[in-house]
């Protein structure tokens, strides 16, 4: 069965320690239900990372979603898109007629600063906070001449400027390359404005059979990382995205050049650069140039992260993937307001979650969507 996204919704994204998960999730679900013109679903998949046991049912009961199958999934930053991938499969195979995918996370009450990986792994035990893991990739790119500091900063400049047109974003601004590079050093060479903020938020999508007026799902692929080491010439996280993308493009019957718009995992500036290369949107070593030249900016040839991305919209882990999906759905329906990519017909969502030692990412999810 062909599957469509009947409706999407999100909360505001930002530091919202005064709100609880019910309030965040309610904002997302209420909007998604209204958008889909439904009042109930047959099953729910929930993506969340740091929520306590039972968090999904605890939140859903408050909005009267009880007595149906509820399945919670965790795949680090790709938890929301994993919920989407599973919800999609449930509809595609006819297991359920209409399914809600919900992502939620409250980071501000759980972390004082950067996330560190699980302490039983060397990365967590040695104090390799997540920004430092990405800094390793950025440092290697600089060493190899595959990016310049100004190109790294250009990703931050671009995405924060995109978010000026996104009222749901955590923050935005007209930053200069100099301001980005001059902000506080977090982990060499990544500065503060090259790192996503600590965020709270929720996002949701209602999936069902293909129908007129709804954004169609051309493909969704989920893959977990294989060992990453000297056997790969690439930085951490590249190969899992490349391989997931190859499957997603094949299943959708498209080439990367066919895509009009993409929302990709830019938790750190280097992430967008490596990802656009791994997705084949640009050639090897050209991700930084693409941001600098405006190729991946709104108005450019292939805009990336028109929402502002994780860097500006914010990154409540479990919610991120479904917020990316919501943005692509709005883009493909022509509902993206001042950040609309004119005439967008084909869009891509990519999320990559990591933190497990040795592996090239815990999971990557890529979805290809098409305009109604």
């Amino acid at each position: 069965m062909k599957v469509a996204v009947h409706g999407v919704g999100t909360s505001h994204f930002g530091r919202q320690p005064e709100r609880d998960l019910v309030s965040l999730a309610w904002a997302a679900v209420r909007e998604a239900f209204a958008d889909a013109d439904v009042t109930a679903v047959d099953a729910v998949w929930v993506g969340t990372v740091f929520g306590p046991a039972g968090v999904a049912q605890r939140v859903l009961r408050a909005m009267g979603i009880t007595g149906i199958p509820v399945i919670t999934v965790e795949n680090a930053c790709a938890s929301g898109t994993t919920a989407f991938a599973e919800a999609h499969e449930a509809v595609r195979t006819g297991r359920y007629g209409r399914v809600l995918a919900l992502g939620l996370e409250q980071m501000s009450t759980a972390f004082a600063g950067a996330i560190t990986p699980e302490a039983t792994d060397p990365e967590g035990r040695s104090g390799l906070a997540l920004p430092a893991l990405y800094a390793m990739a950025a440092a290697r790119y600089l060493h190899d001449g595959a990016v310049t500091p100004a190109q790294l900063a250009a990703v931050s400049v671009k995405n924060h400027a995109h978010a000026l047109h996104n009222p749901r974003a955590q923050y935005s601004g007209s930053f200069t390359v100099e301001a980005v590079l001059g902000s506080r050093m977090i982990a060499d060479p990544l500065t503060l404005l090259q790192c996503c903020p600590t965020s709270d938020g929720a996002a949701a999508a209602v999936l069902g059979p293909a129908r007129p007026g709804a954004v169609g799902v051309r493909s969704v692929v989920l893959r977990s990382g294989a060992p990453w080491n000297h056997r790969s010439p690439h930085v951490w996280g590249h190969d899992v995205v490349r391989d997931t993308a190859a499957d997603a493009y094949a299943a959708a019957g498209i080439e990367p050049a066919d895509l009009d718009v993409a929302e990709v995992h830019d938790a750190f500036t280097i992430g967008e650069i490596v990802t656009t290369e791994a997705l084949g949107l640009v050639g090897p070593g050209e991700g930084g140039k693409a941001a600098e030249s405006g190729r991946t900016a709104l108005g450019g040839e292939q805009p990336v992260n028109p929402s502002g991305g994780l860097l500006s919209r914010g990154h409540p882990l479990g919610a991120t993937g479904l917020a990316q999906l919501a943005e692509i759905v709005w883009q493909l329906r022509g509902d993206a307001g001042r950040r609309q990519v004119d005439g967008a017909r084909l869009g891509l969502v990519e999320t990559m979650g990591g933190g497990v030692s040795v592996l090239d990412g815990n999971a990557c999810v890529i979805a290809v969507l098409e305009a109604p």
Partner: protein
Amino acid sequence: MSAGADGGIVDGRRCRSCAEVSAFPWPACPACGGAVEPASFGPFGKVWSATVVRIPVPGRTPPYRLAYVDLDDGPRVLAHVQADGAAERVVAASIGSRVRLLPDTDEGDLLVEVVES
């Protein structure tokens, strides 16, 4: 993952099927699932990439230097890099530098020193 109190050597595994090396005592090869045998790696290796962590992390005092090190004929391991001066002058270890495993840090982490930059 540990170089022990004497330093220099990391005990891990090598896959009998695909020769994948690992710094962990895992029962099967993480790349192919094949049978593994004990193997020792170190003390020398080369810096694949490096950074300096400048933000507070629980139980750590910034700044501190970390590197992914490809041990000779061995796995890629994460190690602290021995400090090289005052905190305000700390810089990341140079990529490509030769390093040597030292005894573990007090926290039980791998520690290397740069022997040739």
